[in-house]
Each structure stands twice: as structure tokens, then as C-alpha cells.
């Protein structure tokens, strides 16, 4: 089954506000997909539903045929947009926690990346800088051999050198049979690694194409098309 993620008529409303409106989407295996849209477009809502952190109002979302639940959480590796780890824990304690709960977690890869970044595994998270905390989160997520990696704004709020490191970590460590769903505003930094892009605006998917199709059909880069489509 090449369909990894499938949304059918997916809708999420908060009272009178519609965060996602009848989204129909299929994400195949083995692709790096950019989920692009302005603030409040519904990217994070879709990501949260995918991870079982929100329940849809209507419609369905399945991952490898399963609704978000215990089965899908063992297949999805999720990086939220800010650190979600206990600040009192040491890095090695968090690594041990991931070893305990995720059979697909690769501790040797995690420790290798920590060493490359000069992060002491015995250090408490609260002693690390914001950038290093985010790197630890990314290392934990990319050390899993998941079927779907979901990264919500992985390169926002970090310096350009760290951004390059994060992008190379994603490329070098994800399972090629898996897919990566990346939500970001910094399209020009990420465009070169994307296979497909999804444009979402006001809860509606406006475009879902490969990067090559966009360049051939529109004669412009994804970043340029994004600025064109979402121009004020």
C-alpha cells in the first residue's frame, strides 16, 4: 500500500471557526513533503489530528489504514514546534524513555548525533540553550525508524548554521521507505529537499503537487509561487 496518510473530508471546527474544511489528501510513502501556508492556515491543526492530539469534527484521517491511536503513534515520529521535554530530566534519561516506548528507536544513532553536536548526555535539559534543546528534540525524533516523520516548524527560531544542520540531519537519517511531512514558513531553506508541496490556506488545501511540476508549470520556484499565491 503506497498510501501512507489519507484524509477524507477532514473537518475541524472550534465553534464558529473552521480550522480545517473538507480536506482530502493522500501522502505516499518515501517522499519529503512540505506543508506550507500562512499563519492560521490549519497546518498545526492537521498535524495535531494526525498525532491524536485533536479529534476531527467530521471526516477521517488514517495512517497505514489505522485511525490515530496506539498503532499509529508507534509509526509516527513527531517534532512539535517547541520543546516538550521535561526540563528536569537529563538527556540520557529522555533517551532511555524513548528506548522504553519506541521499539524502532536507535540509541546508537542518537548518541552519535549528540556527540557530533557536543551535547553532554548527562546534562539536564534546563541547562541547555534553546537551540540545543531543539536539537535534542530533533535527534530523538530522527533516531526513530518511523514510517512517518512529522516536523512542525523544525527550523524556525534557530540560526542559519543550525538550520543547515537540521536539514542535513533530516536527509541523512530518515528511513527512505518513510515519508517526512515538514511544516514551515522558511521555504527557500527547505525547498531543495522537498519532493512534494501542499499549500493550505484557511483550512483548505489549495495545491498538492510535486516540486518539479510546480517549476515546470509555473516557471518559478516553490518559494516564489508561495509568495504569489499568499500575497497580501
Amino acid at each position, binding site marked *: 500500500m503506497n498510501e501512507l496518510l489519507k484524509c477524507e473530508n477532514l473537518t475541524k471546527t472550534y465553534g464558529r471557526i473552521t480550522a480545517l474544511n473538507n480536506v482530502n489528501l493522500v501522502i505516499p510513502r518515501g517522499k519529503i513533503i512540505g506543508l506550507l501556508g500562512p499563519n492560521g492556515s490549519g497546518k498545526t491543526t492537521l498535524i495535531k489530528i494526525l498525532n491524536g492530539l485533536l479529534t476531527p469534527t467530521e471526516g477521517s484521517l488514517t495512517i497505514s489504514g489505522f485511525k490515530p491511536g496506539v498503532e499509529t503513534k508507534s509509526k509516527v515520529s513527531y517534532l*512539535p514546534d517547541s520543546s516538550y521535554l521535561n526540563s528536569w530530566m537529563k538527556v540520557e534519561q529522555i533517551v532511555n524513555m524513548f528506548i522504553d516506548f519506541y521499539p524502532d528507536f536507535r540509541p546508537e544513532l542518537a548518541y552519535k548525533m549528540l556527540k557530533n553536536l557536543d551535547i553532554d548526555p548527562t546534562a539536564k535539559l534546563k541547562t541547555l540553550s534553546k537551540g540545543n534543546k531543539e536539537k535534542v528534540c530533533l535527534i530523538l525524533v530522527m533516531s526513530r525508524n518511523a514510517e512517518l516523520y512529522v516536523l512542525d516548524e523544525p527550523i524556525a527560531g534557530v540560526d542559519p548554521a543550525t538550520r543547515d544542520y537540521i536539514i542535513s540531519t533530516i536527509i541523512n537519517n530518515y528511513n527512505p521507505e518513510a515519508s517526512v511531512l515538514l511544516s514551515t514558513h522558511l521555504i527557500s531553506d527547505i525547498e531543495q529537499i522537498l519532493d512534494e508541496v501542499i499549500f493550505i490556506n484557511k483550512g483548505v488545501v489549495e495545491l498538492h503537487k510535486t516540486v518539479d511540476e510546480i517549476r515546470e508549470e509555473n516557471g518559478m520556484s516553490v518559494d516564489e509561487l508561495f509568495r504569489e499565491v499568499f500575497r497580501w
Partner: protein
Amino acid sequence: MVNKLLKHEFTALSRMLVPMYIILLGLAVITRIIAIFETDTLIYDIILVSAVVVLSVGLVVGLVYTMVSCIIRFYRNLFSKEGYLTFTLPVSVNAHLLTKLFTSMVAYVASLGIIFISFCIATSGELLAEIFKAAGYILGKAGEALGANLGLYFAEFALLMLVSIAAGILLFYACMCIGQLAKRSRVLLALGVYFGYYYLTQFIVTIGIILLTVFEDSEAFMNLLDWIALNPEATIHIVLLGLTAFYAIMGGVYYLVAHTIMKKKLNLE
């Protein structure tokens, strides 16, 4: 997975509670040491009384602190930013609820144990021996009055205590989950629901007592009193087991409320 959850849960809770337990035991040791150096002076009396007061207040604070720590742990681990990690673990909602309930109950029982040990340390020696002697005398008299059922009554009472503690914890969980249904001021709503529910139950109990006084001269009530007088042992069993069943049912309802909201209405922000 439940074992692993329990391991991490106990690690997190013990780092909050163990330092407090060490302080309480330390206060008990200090009180006992002061008692050893007894002198017939006003200064000594002031110091001893102060130590006893500090220890007594400390023990009460310790119990309250345990309760508050368990509630804070539940909220932070599930409904704060940590929830993004907790709810993305491949673990069911039942496993999360049951491990939190179990570890909280162990913490409560542990805090009661620490209180008892602290009391024994502070009063160790002749005073403690006298206290145990008096307790033994009272138990002996109770045994004479209640007969062979004394052990069974203790077992039923212990079960009632455990079930009522569990129901109390689950009520907090249910209120916090109900608070999550709001868009803003979720903690405030949770507190509002808790106190609203508390006052409602107090109101219902008061109405029940008033109704009892209205019907106290009725034939049915008189027959009930006669039956109780003739069957005191059975009455105690019925009351203990009846209350246990009541708290078990209410605990089940609170669990269902918390589970349903966490599974179907979760909205982490």
C-alpha cells in the same frame, strides 16, 4: 507498556515527594533528640513545644503536599506542553489513567506511612510504649464487643479507605478533564467544577438529613432502628460494604468522564 509508564511515573513523582519525606523524618528525629535532653526549664519547654508544633504542622503539610503534587503531576504531564510527549507515546488512555491513579494512591499511602513512622520516631521510648499499650487495650475492648469479626471489620474498613481515596483522586482527574473543554481559564473551570460538585453533594446530604428528621417518627424508621439494635454486626458490614460500593460506583463514573474526554475531546494547545 504499563510497567514502563509506572517506572517513569514513579521517577517523576518521587523526585517531588522524597525530599519532603526526608524533611519530615528529619523533623521527627530532631523532636526526639530534643526530648532526650529533657530539663526542667521554661526554655526547654518552649523548644520542645515548638518542635512538636513544627512537626505536627509539617505532617499535615506533607499530606496536603502529596495530594497537590499528584494533581499537579497529572495536569502538567497531560495538559501542559509535556502532553505533546505523553499523548504521542504509543500507550492507551486507559494505561495513562490507571498508572497515574495507581502511583497517586501509592504516594498517598506512602505519605500516611511516613506520618506514622515520624510519629513513632518522635515518641519512641516509654511514651510510644504507653501509646501502643493504650491502643492495644482499646483494640482488646473492641474485640470483646465486636467478637470474631474484628479482623473482618478492619479489612472492610481498609478496603473502604482505599476505594474512597481512589474515588477522590478520580474526581480531581475528572474535574481537570472537564476544565479542558473550555477555550480559556481551564484550571479555573476545573476548580469551579470541583467546588460546585462538592457543594452540590453537601446540599444533597443536608436534604437527606432533613428528610430523616421529618420521617424519624414513622413506623418504617422505627423498624429500621429496631433492626439495627438487634443486628449491630450485620449493620456494620452493610455500612462498610455499602459505602465501599458507593465510592466504587462514583469512582467508575469519574473514570468514565476522564477517559471519554481524554480520548474523544482532547484539544492540546
